Protein backbone atom coordinates (compact mmCIF):
# COMPACT_ATOMS: atom_id res chain seq x y z
CA UNK A 1 0.00 0.00 0.00
CA UNK A 2 2.99 2.34 -0.14
CA UNK A 3 5.03 4.12 2.51
CA UNK A 4 3.39 4.93 5.85
CA UNK A 5 2.03 8.47 5.88
CA UNK A 6 3.65 11.22 7.86
CA UNK A 7 1.87 13.38 10.41
CA UNK A 8 -0.89 15.16 8.52
CA UNK A 9 -0.05 18.42 10.28
CA UNK A 10 3.35 18.43 8.60
CA UNK A 11 1.98 17.91 5.09
CA UNK A 12 1.98 20.72 2.59
CA UNK A 13 -1.62 22.08 2.61
CA UNK A 14 -2.07 21.30 -1.07
CA UNK A 15 -0.81 17.75 -0.66
CA UNK A 16 -3.16 17.33 2.29
CA UNK A 17 -6.04 18.67 0.26
CA UNK A 18 -5.38 16.35 -2.66
CA UNK A 19 -4.69 13.14 -0.80
CA UNK A 20 -5.83 13.23 2.80
CA UNK A 21 -9.46 12.80 1.99
CA UNK A 22 -9.25 9.47 0.16
CA UNK A 23 -9.89 5.93 1.34
CA UNK A 24 -6.35 5.08 0.22
CA UNK A 25 -4.89 7.69 2.58
CA UNK A 26 -7.08 6.51 5.44
CA UNK A 27 -6.08 2.91 4.91
CA UNK A 28 -2.38 3.69 4.88
CA UNK A 29 -2.77 5.87 7.97
CA UNK A 30 -4.59 3.34 10.15
CA UNK A 31 -2.81 0.24 8.89
CA UNK A 32 0.36 1.09 10.80
CA UNK A 33 -1.19 1.30 14.24
CA UNK A 34 -4.14 -1.08 13.97
CA UNK A 35 -2.46 -4.10 12.43
CA UNK A 36 -2.09 -6.89 14.95
CA UNK A 37 -4.38 -5.20 17.44
CA UNK A 38 -7.73 -6.48 18.63
CA UNK A 39 -10.32 -3.99 19.86
CA UNK A 40 -7.71 -1.25 19.84
CA UNK A 41 -4.93 -2.97 21.73
CA UNK A 42 -2.53 -5.89 21.57
CA UNK A 43 -4.04 -8.98 23.19
CA UNK A 44 -1.08 -9.70 25.49
CA UNK A 45 -1.40 -6.45 27.52
CA UNK A 46 -2.37 -7.51 31.09
CA UNK A 47 -5.27 -6.10 33.12
CA UNK A 48 -4.00 -3.94 35.96
CA UNK A 49 -7.14 -2.18 37.20
CA UNK A 50 -7.99 -4.07 40.37
CA UNK A 51 -9.17 -1.57 43.01
CA UNK A 52 -12.95 -1.05 43.05
CA UNK A 53 -12.64 2.72 43.40
CA UNK A 54 -10.19 3.06 40.51
CA UNK A 55 -12.39 0.82 38.38
CA UNK A 56 -15.49 2.83 39.18
CA UNK A 57 -13.87 6.14 38.27
CA UNK A 58 -12.51 4.67 35.04
CA UNK A 59 -15.96 3.32 34.12
CA UNK A 60 -17.47 6.79 34.58
CA UNK A 61 -14.81 8.39 32.37
CA UNK A 62 -15.13 5.72 29.66
CA UNK A 63 -18.93 6.00 29.68
CA UNK A 64 -18.59 9.71 28.95
CA UNK A 65 -16.03 9.05 26.23
CA UNK A 66 -18.64 6.71 24.71
CA UNK A 67 -21.17 9.56 24.73
CA UNK A 68 -18.63 11.78 22.95
CA UNK A 69 -17.89 9.10 20.36
CA UNK A 70 -21.59 8.44 19.75
CA UNK A 71 -22.08 12.17 19.10
CA UNK A 72 -19.15 12.02 16.69
CA UNK A 73 -20.41 8.84 14.97
CA UNK A 74 -23.92 10.18 14.41
CA UNK A 75 -22.54 13.57 13.39
CA UNK A 76 -19.96 12.30 10.90
CA UNK A 77 -22.52 9.97 9.31
CA UNK A 78 -25.14 12.68 8.96
CA UNK A 79 -22.69 15.27 7.62
CA UNK A 80 -21.89 13.09 4.59
CA UNK A 81 -25.17 14.13 2.99
CA UNK A 82 -24.47 17.86 3.40
CA UNK A 83 -20.73 17.79 2.62
CA UNK A 84 -20.08 20.19 -0.28
CA UNK A 85 -17.74 17.95 -2.31
CA UNK A 86 -17.18 14.31 -3.21
CA UNK A 87 -13.73 14.12 -1.54
CA UNK A 88 -15.23 15.63 1.64
CA UNK A 89 -17.90 12.91 1.59
CA UNK A 90 -15.22 10.23 1.22
CA UNK A 91 -13.20 11.72 4.09
CA UNK A 92 -16.26 11.82 6.33
CA UNK A 93 -16.97 8.19 5.58
CA UNK A 94 -13.49 7.32 6.87
CA UNK A 95 -14.19 9.47 9.92
CA UNK A 96 -17.53 7.68 10.42
CA UNK A 97 -15.83 4.31 10.62
CA UNK A 98 -13.11 5.76 12.90
CA UNK A 99 -15.80 7.03 15.29
CA UNK A 100 -17.61 3.70 15.14
CA UNK A 101 -14.32 1.96 15.97
CA UNK A 102 -13.69 4.31 18.91
CA UNK A 103 -17.13 3.55 20.30
CA UNK A 104 -16.53 -0.17 19.84
CA UNK A 105 -13.13 -0.29 21.56
CA UNK A 106 -14.36 1.82 24.48
CA UNK A 107 -17.45 -0.38 24.93
CA UNK A 108 -15.17 -3.41 24.77
CA UNK A 109 -12.99 -1.89 27.51
CA UNK A 110 -16.13 -1.38 29.65
CA UNK A 111 -16.98 -5.07 29.19
CA UNK A 112 -13.45 -6.01 30.26
CA UNK A 113 -13.94 -3.91 33.38
CA UNK A 114 -17.01 -5.98 34.26
CA UNK A 115 -19.80 -3.69 32.99
CA UNK A 116 -22.49 -6.15 31.94
CA UNK A 117 -24.84 -3.72 30.15
CA UNK A 118 -22.73 -0.93 28.66
CA UNK A 119 -25.67 0.86 26.95
CA UNK A 120 -27.52 1.22 30.28
CA UNK A 121 -24.35 2.17 32.16
CA UNK A 122 -23.45 4.85 29.60
CA UNK A 123 -26.94 6.36 29.87
CA UNK A 124 -26.72 6.31 33.68
CA UNK A 125 -23.30 7.96 33.97
CA UNK A 126 -23.48 10.45 31.08
CA UNK A 127 -22.51 13.98 32.09
CA UNK A 128 -25.37 16.52 31.73
CA UNK A 129 -23.08 19.02 29.98
CA UNK A 130 -22.09 16.44 27.36
CA UNK A 131 -25.73 15.51 26.83
CA UNK A 132 -26.54 19.15 26.28
CA UNK A 133 -23.66 19.36 23.79
CA UNK A 134 -25.18 16.35 22.01
CA UNK A 135 -28.54 18.09 21.75
CA UNK A 136 -27.06 21.32 20.35
CA UNK A 137 -24.73 19.48 17.97
CA UNK A 138 -27.68 17.41 16.72
CA UNK A 139 -29.58 20.61 15.92
CA UNK A 140 -26.68 21.94 13.85
CA UNK A 141 -26.38 18.66 11.94
CA UNK A 142 -30.13 18.36 11.33
CA UNK A 143 -30.17 21.96 10.13
CA UNK A 144 -27.75 21.01 7.34
CA UNK A 145 -25.43 23.78 8.58
CA UNK A 146 -22.16 22.39 7.18
CA UNK A 147 -19.79 25.04 8.54
CA UNK A 148 -21.23 25.25 12.03
CA UNK A 149 -21.72 21.49 12.42
CA UNK A 150 -18.21 20.74 11.15
CA UNK A 151 -16.77 23.38 13.49
CA UNK A 152 -18.66 21.88 16.47
CA UNK A 153 -17.61 18.37 15.55
CA UNK A 154 -14.12 18.43 14.03
CA UNK A 155 -12.74 21.41 15.90
CA UNK A 156 -14.53 21.78 19.25
CA UNK A 157 -15.42 18.16 20.09
CA UNK A 158 -12.36 16.53 18.50
CA UNK A 159 -9.92 19.04 20.01
CA UNK A 160 -11.42 18.45 23.43
CA UNK A 161 -11.21 14.68 23.01
CA UNK A 162 -7.69 14.91 21.64
CA UNK A 163 -6.45 16.91 24.63
CA UNK A 164 -8.23 14.84 27.28
CA UNK A 165 -7.48 11.41 25.76
CA UNK A 166 -3.85 12.33 25.24
CA UNK A 167 -3.45 13.40 28.87
CA UNK A 168 -5.47 10.47 30.17
CA UNK A 169 -3.25 8.05 28.22
CA UNK A 170 -0.23 9.30 30.20
CA UNK A 171 -1.96 8.50 33.51
CA UNK A 172 -3.91 5.40 32.48
CA UNK A 173 -3.40 1.67 33.01
CA UNK A 174 -1.62 -0.04 30.06
CA UNK A 175 -4.77 -1.43 28.37
CA UNK A 176 -6.66 1.86 28.50
CA UNK A 177 -3.52 3.73 27.43
CA UNK A 178 -3.11 1.73 24.22
CA UNK A 179 -6.78 2.09 23.34
CA UNK A 180 -6.66 5.86 23.89
CA UNK A 181 -3.44 6.39 21.95
CA UNK A 182 -4.98 4.66 18.93
CA UNK A 183 -7.99 6.96 19.14
CA UNK A 184 -5.81 10.06 19.48
CA UNK A 185 -4.07 9.23 16.20
CA UNK A 186 -7.40 9.25 14.39
CA UNK A 187 -8.47 12.49 16.08
CA UNK A 188 -5.43 14.28 14.67
CA UNK A 189 -6.57 13.39 11.17
CA UNK A 190 -10.11 14.60 11.86
CA UNK A 191 -8.89 17.88 13.35
CA UNK A 192 -6.58 18.37 10.35
CA UNK A 193 -9.50 17.94 7.97
CA UNK A 194 -11.76 20.27 9.98
CA UNK A 195 -9.19 23.04 10.24
CA UNK A 196 -8.21 22.75 6.59
CA UNK A 197 -11.78 22.71 5.27
CA UNK A 198 -12.94 25.56 7.52
CA UNK A 199 -9.74 27.57 6.98
CA UNK A 200 -10.37 27.57 3.22
CA UNK A 201 -14.01 28.49 3.61
CA UNK A 202 -13.20 31.28 6.07
CA UNK A 203 -10.81 32.80 3.55
CA UNK A 204 -13.53 32.84 0.90
CA UNK A 205 -16.30 33.99 3.24
CA UNK A 206 -15.01 36.12 6.13
CA UNK A 207 -18.60 36.60 7.40
CA UNK A 208 -18.47 32.99 8.43
CA UNK A 209 -16.32 33.99 11.42
CA UNK A 210 -19.29 35.67 13.07
CA UNK A 211 -21.40 32.53 12.71
CA UNK A 212 -18.65 30.31 14.14
CA UNK A 213 -18.14 32.71 17.05
CA UNK A 214 -21.81 32.33 17.92
CA UNK A 215 -21.50 28.55 17.84
CA UNK A 216 -18.41 28.75 19.97
CA UNK A 217 -20.03 31.02 22.54
CA UNK A 218 -22.81 28.51 22.95
CA UNK A 219 -20.66 25.38 23.09
CA UNK A 220 -17.54 26.61 24.94
CA UNK A 221 -19.04 26.49 28.46
CA UNK A 222 -20.25 22.92 27.92
CA UNK A 223 -16.90 21.77 26.59
CA UNK A 224 -14.90 23.46 29.34
CA UNK A 225 -17.17 21.95 31.98
CA UNK A 226 -16.62 18.53 30.40
CA UNK A 227 -12.85 19.17 30.56
CA UNK A 228 -13.06 19.87 34.28
CA UNK A 229 -15.14 16.77 35.00
CA UNK A 230 -12.90 14.48 32.96
CA UNK A 231 -9.67 15.77 34.49
CA UNK A 232 -11.05 15.38 37.99
CA UNK A 233 -12.03 11.77 37.26
CA UNK A 234 -8.73 10.75 35.69
CA UNK A 235 -6.83 12.11 38.66
CA UNK A 236 -5.04 15.04 37.01
CA UNK A 237 -4.31 18.15 39.10
CA UNK A 238 -6.74 21.05 38.74
CA UNK A 239 -4.01 23.22 37.20
CA UNK A 240 -3.96 20.92 34.17
CA UNK A 241 -7.37 22.11 33.19
CA UNK A 242 -5.85 25.36 31.91
CA UNK A 243 -3.12 23.54 29.97
CA UNK A 244 -5.61 21.24 28.27
CA UNK A 245 -7.94 24.08 27.43
CA UNK A 246 -4.96 25.82 25.83
CA UNK A 247 -4.64 23.37 22.93
CA UNK A 248 -8.34 23.73 22.21
CA UNK A 249 -8.07 27.53 22.32
CA UNK A 250 -5.01 27.47 20.06
CA UNK A 251 -6.94 25.57 17.39
CA UNK A 252 -9.80 28.01 17.54
CA UNK A 253 -7.34 30.91 17.33
CA UNK A 254 -5.66 29.37 14.26
CA UNK A 255 -9.00 29.66 12.52
CA UNK A 256 -9.44 33.26 13.68
CA UNK A 257 -12.53 32.41 15.70
CA UNK A 258 -11.39 33.93 19.01
Amino acid sequence: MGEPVEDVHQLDPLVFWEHARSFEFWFEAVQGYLEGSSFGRHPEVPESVREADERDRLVTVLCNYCVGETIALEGAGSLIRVAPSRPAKVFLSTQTVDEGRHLEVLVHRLLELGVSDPEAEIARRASPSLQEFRRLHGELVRGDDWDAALFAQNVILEEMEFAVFHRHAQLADPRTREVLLGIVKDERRHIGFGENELGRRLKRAPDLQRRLREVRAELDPLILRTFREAIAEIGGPAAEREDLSKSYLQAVTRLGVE
Partner: protein
Amino acid sequence: MTTDFLKGYDIQYWLESCPQGYLMDTEYGHQPGEREPDVMLRDPVLREQAVRTTVQLILGERCALAASSGLINAAPDEASKRFLATQTLDEARHVEVFTHRLLDLGIKNNELEEVLKTFANPHLVRFAETLLEVVDRKDFVAGVVGQNLILEGMAFHVFEMMQAGSQQTNPKFAHTLAGTIADERRHVGFGENRIGALIREHPERKADVEKLQREMSYHMLATFGAAFREGPSPQEMAERLAKAGIESKGGQDWQGVRLGEATPEELEQVLGDTILKEFKKRLQRVGVEYQTPLVPM
Protein backbone atom coordinates in the same frame (compact mmCIF):
# COMPACT_ATOMS: atom_id res chain seq x y z
CA MET B 1 -30.21 -12.96 19.95
CA THR B 2 -29.86 -9.77 17.91
CA THR B 3 -26.73 -8.81 19.85
CA ASP B 4 -25.22 -12.26 19.18
CA PHE B 5 -25.60 -11.99 15.42
CA LEU B 6 -24.23 -8.43 15.46
CA LYS B 7 -20.97 -9.69 16.98
CA GLY B 8 -20.23 -11.08 13.52
CA TYR B 9 -20.60 -7.60 12.06
CA ASP B 10 -18.39 -5.56 14.38
CA ILE B 11 -15.62 -3.22 13.28
CA GLN B 12 -12.89 -5.52 14.53
CA TYR B 13 -14.18 -8.25 12.18
CA TRP B 14 -14.48 -5.73 9.37
CA LEU B 15 -10.89 -4.49 9.89
CA GLU B 16 -9.48 -8.01 9.81
CA SER B 17 -11.49 -9.27 6.86
CA CYS B 18 -11.63 -6.19 4.63
CA PRO B 19 -8.79 -3.60 4.88
CA GLN B 20 -6.41 -6.12 6.46
CA GLY B 21 -7.81 -9.01 4.37
CA TYR B 22 -8.97 -8.95 0.79
CA LEU B 23 -8.09 -5.29 0.19
CA MET B 24 -4.53 -5.69 1.44
CA ASP B 25 -1.99 -4.65 -1.20
CA THR B 26 -4.63 -3.31 -3.57
CA GLU B 27 -4.67 0.14 -5.14
CA TYR B 28 -8.05 1.68 -5.83
CA GLY B 29 -9.47 -1.85 -5.54
CA HIS B 30 -7.15 -3.59 -8.03
CA GLN B 31 -3.62 -4.94 -8.09
CA PRO B 32 -0.95 -2.20 -8.14
CA GLY B 33 0.12 -1.38 -11.69
CA GLU B 34 -2.93 -2.90 -13.41
CA ARG B 35 -4.39 -0.75 -16.19
CA GLU B 36 -7.44 -0.66 -18.38
CA PRO B 37 -6.65 -2.56 -21.62
CA ASP B 38 -5.39 -0.09 -24.26
CA VAL B 39 -8.24 -1.01 -26.57
CA MET B 40 -10.72 0.39 -24.02
CA LEU B 41 -9.18 3.80 -24.52
CA ARG B 42 -8.71 3.50 -28.32
CA ASP B 43 -12.00 1.97 -29.46
CA PRO B 44 -14.76 4.59 -29.06
CA VAL B 45 -17.54 2.01 -28.85
CA LEU B 46 -15.85 -0.06 -26.14
CA ARG B 47 -14.85 3.07 -24.25
CA GLU B 48 -18.35 4.52 -24.28
CA GLN B 49 -19.81 1.24 -23.09
CA ALA B 50 -17.26 1.10 -20.24
CA VAL B 51 -18.08 4.71 -19.30
CA ARG B 52 -21.85 4.04 -19.41
CA THR B 53 -21.53 0.97 -17.18
CA THR B 54 -19.23 2.74 -14.73
CA VAL B 55 -21.59 5.71 -14.47
CA GLN B 56 -24.42 3.44 -13.26
CA LEU B 57 -22.04 1.87 -10.72
CA ILE B 58 -21.05 5.29 -9.38
CA LEU B 59 -24.64 6.50 -9.12
CA GLY B 60 -25.71 3.31 -7.35
CA GLU B 61 -22.81 3.60 -4.92
CA ARG B 62 -23.44 7.30 -4.27
CA CYS B 63 -27.01 6.41 -3.39
CA ALA B 64 -25.76 3.62 -1.10
CA LEU B 65 -23.31 6.03 0.58
CA ALA B 66 -26.01 8.60 1.30
CA ALA B 67 -28.40 5.91 2.52
CA SER B 68 -26.04 3.98 4.80
CA SER B 69 -24.65 7.14 6.43
CA GLY B 70 -28.16 8.57 6.82
CA LEU B 71 -29.37 5.40 8.51
CA ILE B 72 -26.78 5.58 11.32
CA ASN B 73 -28.91 8.08 13.21
CA ALA B 74 -32.04 6.03 12.64
CA ALA B 75 -30.54 2.71 13.85
CA PRO B 76 -32.28 1.45 16.99
CA ASP B 77 -29.13 0.10 18.67
CA GLU B 78 -25.48 1.01 19.01
CA ALA B 79 -24.16 -2.19 17.36
CA SER B 80 -26.20 -1.51 14.19
CA LYS B 81 -24.83 2.05 14.15
CA ARG B 82 -21.31 0.63 14.20
CA PHE B 83 -22.04 -1.83 11.39
CA LEU B 84 -23.50 1.00 9.31
CA ALA B 85 -20.31 2.98 9.94
CA THR B 86 -18.34 0.19 8.21
CA GLN B 87 -20.90 0.03 5.43
CA THR B 88 -20.62 3.79 4.98
CA LEU B 89 -16.89 3.49 4.42
CA ASP B 90 -17.35 0.50 2.11
CA GLU B 91 -19.77 2.50 -0.03
CA ALA B 92 -17.48 5.53 -0.09
CA ARG B 93 -14.64 3.26 -1.20
CA HIS B 94 -16.84 1.94 -4.01
CA VAL B 95 -17.65 5.49 -5.09
CA GLU B 96 -13.92 6.23 -5.03
CA VAL B 97 -12.75 3.18 -7.00
CA PHE B 98 -15.43 3.47 -9.67
CA THR B 99 -14.84 7.21 -9.99
CA HIS B 100 -11.17 6.43 -10.37
CA ARG B 101 -12.07 4.04 -13.18
CA LEU B 102 -13.82 6.84 -15.05
CA LEU B 103 -10.65 8.92 -14.73
CA ASP B 104 -8.64 5.93 -16.00
CA LEU B 105 -10.99 5.81 -18.99
CA GLY B 106 -9.94 9.35 -19.85
CA ILE B 107 -12.71 11.40 -18.25
CA LYS B 108 -11.32 14.59 -16.73
CA ASN B 109 -12.20 15.67 -13.21
CA ASN B 110 -14.06 18.75 -14.45
CA GLU B 111 -16.14 16.61 -16.85
CA LEU B 112 -17.16 14.08 -14.23
CA GLU B 113 -20.55 15.43 -13.13
CA GLU B 114 -21.61 16.16 -16.71
CA VAL B 115 -20.69 12.63 -17.81
CA LEU B 116 -22.69 11.21 -14.90
CA LYS B 117 -25.69 13.30 -15.93
CA THR B 118 -25.40 12.30 -19.60
CA PHE B 119 -25.29 8.54 -19.02
CA ALA B 120 -27.45 8.25 -15.87
CA ASN B 121 -30.24 5.74 -16.23
CA PRO B 122 -33.49 7.53 -15.23
CA HIS B 123 -34.80 4.44 -13.44
CA LEU B 124 -31.70 4.31 -11.26
CA VAL B 125 -32.11 8.01 -10.46
CA ARG B 126 -35.75 7.41 -9.48
CA PHE B 127 -34.73 4.42 -7.36
CA ALA B 128 -32.21 6.59 -5.51
CA GLU B 129 -34.78 9.32 -4.90
CA THR B 130 -37.28 6.82 -3.48
CA LEU B 131 -34.69 5.27 -1.18
CA LEU B 132 -33.38 8.59 0.07
CA GLU B 133 -36.91 9.80 0.84
CA VAL B 134 -37.26 6.78 3.14
CA VAL B 135 -33.89 7.50 4.76
CA ASP B 136 -34.82 11.15 5.31
CA ARG B 137 -37.88 9.97 7.22
CA LYS B 138 -35.47 7.99 9.47
CA ASP B 139 -37.40 4.81 8.70
CA PHE B 140 -34.75 2.24 9.60
CA VAL B 141 -36.69 -0.89 8.54
CA ALA B 142 -37.73 0.46 5.13
CA GLY B 143 -34.29 2.02 4.62
CA VAL B 144 -32.41 -1.22 5.25
CA VAL B 145 -34.83 -3.20 3.06
CA GLY B 146 -34.32 -0.68 0.23
CA GLN B 147 -30.58 -0.39 0.66
CA ASN B 148 -29.29 -3.75 1.87
CA LEU B 149 -31.83 -6.10 0.33
CA ILE B 150 -33.12 -4.46 -2.84
CA LEU B 151 -30.25 -2.26 -4.04
CA GLU B 152 -27.38 -4.42 -2.80
CA GLY B 153 -29.14 -7.77 -3.04
CA MET B 154 -29.95 -7.17 -6.69
CA ALA B 155 -26.78 -5.35 -7.69
CA PHE B 156 -24.75 -8.18 -6.17
CA HIS B 157 -25.68 -10.52 -9.06
CA VAL B 158 -24.98 -7.88 -11.69
CA PHE B 159 -21.53 -7.37 -10.19
CA GLU B 160 -20.94 -11.13 -10.20
CA MET B 161 -21.90 -11.36 -13.86
CA MET B 162 -19.71 -8.40 -14.82
CA GLN B 163 -16.83 -9.81 -12.81
CA ALA B 164 -17.11 -13.19 -14.57
CA GLY B 165 -17.27 -11.45 -17.94
CA SER B 166 -14.20 -9.29 -17.25
CA GLN B 167 -11.84 -11.91 -15.86
CA GLN B 168 -10.19 -12.65 -19.21
CA THR B 169 -10.66 -9.35 -20.96
CA ASN B 170 -10.06 -6.80 -18.19
CA PRO B 171 -8.41 -8.22 -15.04
CA LYS B 172 -8.15 -4.73 -13.50
CA PHE B 173 -11.91 -4.22 -13.56
CA ALA B 174 -12.51 -7.84 -12.49
CA HIS B 175 -10.31 -7.30 -9.40
CA THR B 176 -12.09 -4.04 -8.56
CA LEU B 177 -15.43 -5.82 -8.75
CA ALA B 178 -14.22 -8.77 -6.66
CA GLY B 179 -13.58 -6.52 -3.64
CA THR B 180 -16.92 -4.81 -4.11
CA ILE B 181 -18.76 -8.15 -4.27
CA ALA B 182 -17.11 -9.27 -1.02
CA ASP B 183 -18.36 -6.07 0.67
CA GLU B 184 -21.88 -6.42 -0.74
CA ARG B 185 -22.12 -9.97 0.57
CA ARG B 186 -21.55 -8.64 4.09
CA HIS B 187 -24.12 -5.87 3.67
CA VAL B 188 -26.77 -8.25 2.40
CA GLY B 189 -26.07 -10.60 5.32
CA PHE B 190 -26.56 -7.79 7.80
CA GLY B 191 -29.76 -6.69 6.06
CA GLU B 192 -31.27 -10.17 6.14
CA ASN B 193 -30.39 -10.77 9.77
CA ARG B 194 -31.34 -7.41 11.18
CA ILE B 195 -34.53 -6.92 9.17
CA GLY B 196 -35.65 -10.51 9.81
CA ALA B 197 -35.49 -9.80 13.55
CA LEU B 198 -37.22 -6.41 13.21
CA ILE B 199 -40.06 -7.79 11.07
CA ARG B 200 -40.63 -10.50 13.68
CA GLU B 201 -40.76 -7.79 16.37
CA HIS B 202 -42.97 -5.49 14.26
CA PRO B 203 -45.19 -7.64 12.00
CA GLU B 204 -47.34 -4.56 11.34
CA ARG B 205 -44.50 -3.23 9.13
CA LYS B 206 -44.74 -6.17 6.68
CA ALA B 207 -47.39 -4.62 4.40
CA ASP B 208 -45.63 -1.31 3.79
CA VAL B 209 -42.28 -3.04 3.34
CA GLU B 210 -43.86 -5.23 0.64
CA LYS B 211 -45.32 -2.15 -1.06
CA LEU B 212 -41.92 -0.47 -1.03
CA GLN B 213 -40.29 -3.61 -2.43
CA ARG B 214 -42.78 -3.64 -5.30
CA GLU B 215 -41.99 -0.06 -6.28
CA MET B 216 -38.24 -0.24 -5.83
CA SER B 217 -37.78 -3.62 -7.53
CA TYR B 218 -39.45 -2.22 -10.63
CA HIS B 219 -36.86 0.54 -10.92
CA MET B 220 -33.97 -1.86 -10.32
CA LEU B 221 -35.17 -4.39 -12.91
CA ALA B 222 -35.86 -1.60 -15.40
CA THR B 223 -32.30 -0.31 -14.86
CA PHE B 224 -30.80 -3.74 -15.59
CA GLY B 225 -33.05 -4.22 -18.62
CA ALA B 226 -31.96 -0.90 -20.10
CA ALA B 227 -28.32 -1.80 -19.55
CA PHE B 228 -28.65 -4.70 -22.00
CA ARG B 229 -30.60 -2.78 -24.60
CA GLU B 230 -28.13 0.12 -24.77
CA GLY B 231 -24.67 -0.12 -26.30
CA PRO B 232 -23.03 -2.90 -28.27
CA SER B 233 -24.00 -6.58 -27.98
CA PRO B 234 -21.68 -9.06 -26.21
CA GLN B 235 -20.75 -10.51 -29.63
CA GLU B 236 -19.76 -7.08 -30.97
CA MET B 237 -17.75 -6.43 -27.82
CA ALA B 238 -15.96 -9.80 -28.24
CA GLU B 239 -15.19 -9.03 -31.91
CA ARG B 240 -13.78 -5.61 -31.10
CA LEU B 241 -11.65 -7.05 -28.32
CA ALA B 242 -10.48 -9.87 -30.60
CA LYS B 243 -9.34 -7.31 -33.19
CA ALA B 244 -7.09 -5.84 -30.49
CA GLY B 245 -5.72 -9.30 -29.71
CA ILE B 246 -7.78 -9.88 -26.57
CA GLU B 247 -9.47 -13.25 -26.92
CA SER B 248 -12.42 -13.81 -24.62
CA LYS B 249 -12.84 -17.44 -25.86
CA GLY B 250 -16.56 -17.17 -25.40
CA GLY B 251 -16.08 -15.65 -21.98
CA GLN B 252 -16.57 -17.18 -18.58
CA ASP B 253 -19.53 -19.33 -17.71
CA TRP B 254 -22.02 -17.63 -15.41
CA GLN B 255 -25.17 -19.48 -14.38
CA GLY B 256 -24.65 -21.85 -17.34
CA VAL B 257 -24.34 -19.11 -19.98
CA ARG B 258 -21.19 -18.31 -22.00
CA LEU B 259 -21.07 -14.57 -21.39
CA GLY B 260 -19.10 -13.65 -24.53
CA GLU B 261 -21.39 -15.63 -26.83
CA ALA B 262 -24.84 -14.91 -25.36
CA THR B 263 -27.29 -12.53 -27.00
CA PRO B 264 -28.44 -9.49 -25.01
CA GLU B 265 -31.84 -11.22 -24.58
CA GLU B 266 -30.20 -14.35 -23.17
CA LEU B 267 -28.13 -12.28 -20.76
CA GLU B 268 -31.15 -10.29 -19.66
CA GLN B 269 -33.08 -13.52 -19.15
CA VAL B 270 -30.40 -15.26 -17.07
CA LEU B 271 -29.74 -12.16 -14.98
CA GLY B 272 -33.46 -11.60 -14.37
CA ASP B 273 -33.98 -15.26 -13.43
CA THR B 274 -31.04 -15.26 -11.04
CA ILE B 275 -31.90 -11.97 -9.41
CA LEU B 276 -35.54 -12.83 -8.89
CA LYS B 277 -34.87 -16.38 -7.70
CA GLU B 278 -32.33 -15.24 -5.11
CA PHE B 279 -34.26 -12.14 -4.19
CA LYS B 280 -37.46 -14.11 -3.49
CA LYS B 281 -35.50 -16.51 -1.27
CA ARG B 282 -33.97 -13.61 0.60
CA LEU B 283 -37.32 -11.94 1.21
CA GLN B 284 -38.77 -15.24 2.37
CA ARG B 285 -35.97 -15.55 4.92
CA VAL B 286 -36.85 -12.16 6.42
CA GLY B 287 -40.56 -12.95 6.41
CA VAL B 288 -41.65 -10.74 3.50
CA GLU B 289 -43.52 -12.00 0.43
CA TYR B 290 -42.23 -10.97 -2.98
CA GLN B 291 -44.59 -8.59 -4.79
CA THR B 292 -44.38 -8.59 -8.58
CA PRO B 293 -43.63 -5.08 -9.83
CA LEU B 294 -46.36 -3.26 -11.80
CA VAL B 295 -44.47 -3.41 -15.09
CA PRO B 296 -42.10 -6.37 -14.96
CA MET B 297 -38.86 -6.31 -16.94
